[in-house]
């Protein structure tokens, strides 16, 4: 195809887009009148909601309005939670018949399915993610995760051939704000299936659905103390990690905090799994189905506003197709609808917090300052709330901060390569190693590159797929341990 025909094709597509603009979508917001939540939350300890102190607000990032206030647990409150978890482990959960444990976890999965709509709306209100994602991705996965691990609870001895397995004790779990309920499910389900009790801390900007989950634990009649949820920020998390009666620490979040946690447990024999940051390479070879690849790029970086540790935030395009891919990408980016997370047509919702928005602005500015070319969607942004335009940087070099650091926002850095070897070198040139995408129609090339990439999850001709049966986790500074699948059981079991 000559350049000229390319341009013609381009203008035809633009016409299509103009059509889309002329015939815009009417607002279609999800109603919130049926969702129930309290104005103030303390903690969930020993099966009961308890009062707390030092309340802080959680705001709706799309409106900047306060949704509810949450207490911040101090060391003493964390200690209560750990004691309650220990008592439940020793007294009930650890010695319960595995088949009964399985049924309790199953109940949680079912209750989540029954309450999925309300939970999805609350997730979007509290965290800013588009309702179509919380409804169609997060919640189904949350329920599926509990249902998957429920089935493991009474089959653990089949999981690790030749070994005997036993539970560990009390797990302390600290989770991030990008997939609040899903991360809670990833942490709770395998821990409970393996026979451990839990103290969980949700992120301070998205604690609402964890409190709803606590209600479901009550409805499920889960024995008191098996799941304890304490609210708070860094100090609360540190108190959990450092508590001497915690046997296992599981953390999902930034590499920076992961290192602090690894340091904090030095000198103890606490087990640790870390699911940390990433700078995923999404590699487009010239023989890839380009239109599908462009959808994959969009899915890879703009899913959940780019608040995804495994986001495909470094696009590596083979030079021969770079121009075409970037053209298609910019066009497609233009059609993304950015706005009210509760609107069913919204593709990109609100940035989770003011702090995160500031961080994105700062890194984007560094990209401009360091000489990369910025391309942004021309869409209108709501006048209130934290929003950021879908952004693509071209002319990015490997030394740029936007090619090295995790932005955790809807910002894509594009680099080019000539040979598969160069693509691999660039893809692996990162302290992170969480995820990668490879787009090619040639199977042998796909296998060879997938084998040589140092990343825990490799998507071939797709991106950002998740499933409870599929282990997830990183290489290198993206952390260690796996969540999901059979391999996700191991961190919660003593395997001898």
């Amino acid at each position, binding site marked *: 195809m000559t350049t000229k025909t390319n341009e013609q094709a381009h203008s035809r597509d633009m016409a299509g887009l103009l059509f889309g603009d002329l015939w815009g979508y009417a607002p279609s917001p999800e109603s919130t009148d049926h969702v129930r939540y309290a104005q103030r939350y303390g903690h969930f300890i020993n099966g009961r909601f308890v009062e707390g102190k030092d309340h802080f607000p959680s705001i709706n990032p799309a409106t900047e309005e306060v949704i509810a206030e949450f207490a911040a647990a101090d060391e003493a409150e964390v200690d209560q939670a750990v004691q309650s978890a220990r008592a439940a482990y020793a007294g009930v959960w650890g010695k319960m018949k595995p088949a009964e444990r399985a049924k309790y976890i199953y109940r949680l999965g079912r209750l989540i399915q029954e309450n999925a709509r309300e939970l999805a709306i609350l997730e979007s209100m509290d965290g800013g993610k588009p309702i179509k994602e919380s409804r169609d991705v997060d919640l189904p996965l949350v329920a*599926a995760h509990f249902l998957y691990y429920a089935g493991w609870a009474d089959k653990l001895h089949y999981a*690790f*051939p*030749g*070994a005997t397995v036993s539970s560990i004790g009390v797990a302390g779990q600290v989770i991030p704000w990008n997939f609040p309920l899903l991360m809670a499910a990833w942490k709770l389900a395998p821990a409970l299936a393996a026979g451990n009790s839990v103290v969980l801390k949700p992120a301070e900007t998205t604690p609402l659905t964890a409190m709803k989950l606590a209600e479901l634990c009550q409805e499920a009649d889960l024995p008191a103390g098996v799941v304890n949820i304490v609210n708070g920020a860094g100090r609360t998390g540190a108190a959990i990690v450092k508590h001497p009666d915690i046997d296992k620490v599981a953390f999902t979040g930034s*590499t920076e905090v*992961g*290192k*602090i946690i*690894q*340091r904090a*447990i*030095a*000198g103890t*024999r606490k087990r640790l799994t*870390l699911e*940390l940051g990433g700078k995923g390479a999404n590699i487009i070879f010239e023989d890839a189905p380009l239109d599908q690849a462009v959808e994959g790029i969009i899915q890879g970086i703009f899913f959940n506003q780019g608040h995804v540790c495994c986001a495909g935030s470094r696009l590596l395009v083979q030079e021969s197709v770079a121009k075409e891919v970037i053209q298609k990408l910019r066009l497609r980016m233009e059609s993304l609808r950015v706005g009210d997370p509760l609107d069913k047509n919204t593709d990109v919702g609100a940035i989770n917090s003011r702090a995160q928005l500031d961080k994105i602005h700062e890194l984007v500015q560094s990209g401009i300052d360091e000489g990369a070319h910025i391309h942004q969607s021309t869409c209108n942004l709501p006048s209130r709330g934290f929003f950021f335009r879908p952004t693509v940087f071209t002319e990015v070099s490997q030394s740029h901060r936007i090619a090295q650091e995790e932005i955790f926002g809807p910002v894509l850095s594009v680099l080019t390569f000539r040979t598969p070897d160069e693509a691999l070198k660039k893809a692996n040139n990162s*302290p992170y190693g969480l995820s990668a995408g490879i787009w090619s129609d040639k199977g042998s090339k*796909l296998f060879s590159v*997938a084998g040589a990439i140092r*990343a*825990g*999850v*490799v*998507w*071939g*001709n*797709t991106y950002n*797929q998740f*499933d409870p*049966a*599929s*282990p*997830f*986790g990183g*290489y*290198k*500074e*993206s*952390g*260690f341990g*796996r969540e999901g*699948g*059979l*391999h996700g059981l*191991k961190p919660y079991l003593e*395997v*001898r």
Partner: protein
Amino acid sequence: MTQTQKKKSTDTTQKKSPEAATIPNAEQTNGSEGSAASKAQAKSASPPPTARSTASAPNDHRLVGGGRTDNGRLMVHKTYKMWVGGKFIRSEQGRVLGLHNAEGDLVTHYVRASRKDLRDAVSAARSAQTPWATRSAFNRGQILFRAAEMIDARRESLIARLQEHAHLSASEATQEVDAAADRMFWYAGWTDKYVQVLSSVNPVASSFFNFTLPEPTGVVAIFAPTNAPLLGLVSLIAPVILSGNTCVVLVENNAPTVAIELSEILATSDFPGGVVNILTGLRDELLPHAAGHMDINAIASCGGNEAQDRAIQLAACESVKRVHFFEQPQTLDAWCSERQQSLYSILPFVEWKTAWHPIGV
């Protein structure tokens, strides 16, 4: 250079002139006929000696090795070097430590590795890692099997060395060497099986082919056990390298020379240079550098004290290293137990890669 010395180690620092440190001493080996005879007997690879070397004056720093054979021949002095990148090297610093027999006599010198030696070893291990990992599992297995063969082939010599340098009885030494060969043999068989046993095809709910398999973590630093100088070493090295990792082993125990003997065995087992690198020296000196080294992916440690283990964990977080502590068995019988060999000893040094691909036409 200013590290604290272990009580059994004599630092005879002779910068850039290790020969000077050993040769003059070798000539002082008179007046301890018993020791020399015992050593000579061992060196000749004849059946292990039953009598220990006779007592000589304590703190009498004479080389009792390099003695005479049964028929009175003066043996060629052996220098215990380190094994890095497939080469037998001295420390770039030229520092050595002394190994003593049960009576306190200096038996031989061995190298005290420096920080630079460690860095060189890591770089050798890094260069060797991808080629080693991309060899076929069958081929890696063949090499590990060959190592087991070679341990058996040098059985008498190893038994003698364990008696002489690690002060084991003949039966203990025999037990340890035999168990070491068997352990290497046991792990060798896993190279082309562990992936099969541990990987999975994941039945995801969407239309994708999804599978998970283990891959080597990369470069692993091994702090070798402080006892069982042969079996302990084999028990840590084998599960680390069989998957395709390369390693840098730091040995500090009562007979680091045995580790060097093992490296001579591995060197004749077709291991590519750099897959296993063996340094002798002081754990306290090299530990912070190894644990904090940004190109080491994982650490296996055995027999460290509380402070050492904590120091490893503290420094390891800089590059989110995987750290695994092996509990050190306290008796030879415990080391020889089958409980000490496990498929699950491979796991701390592998990563799980999950791959997705759409299914469709």
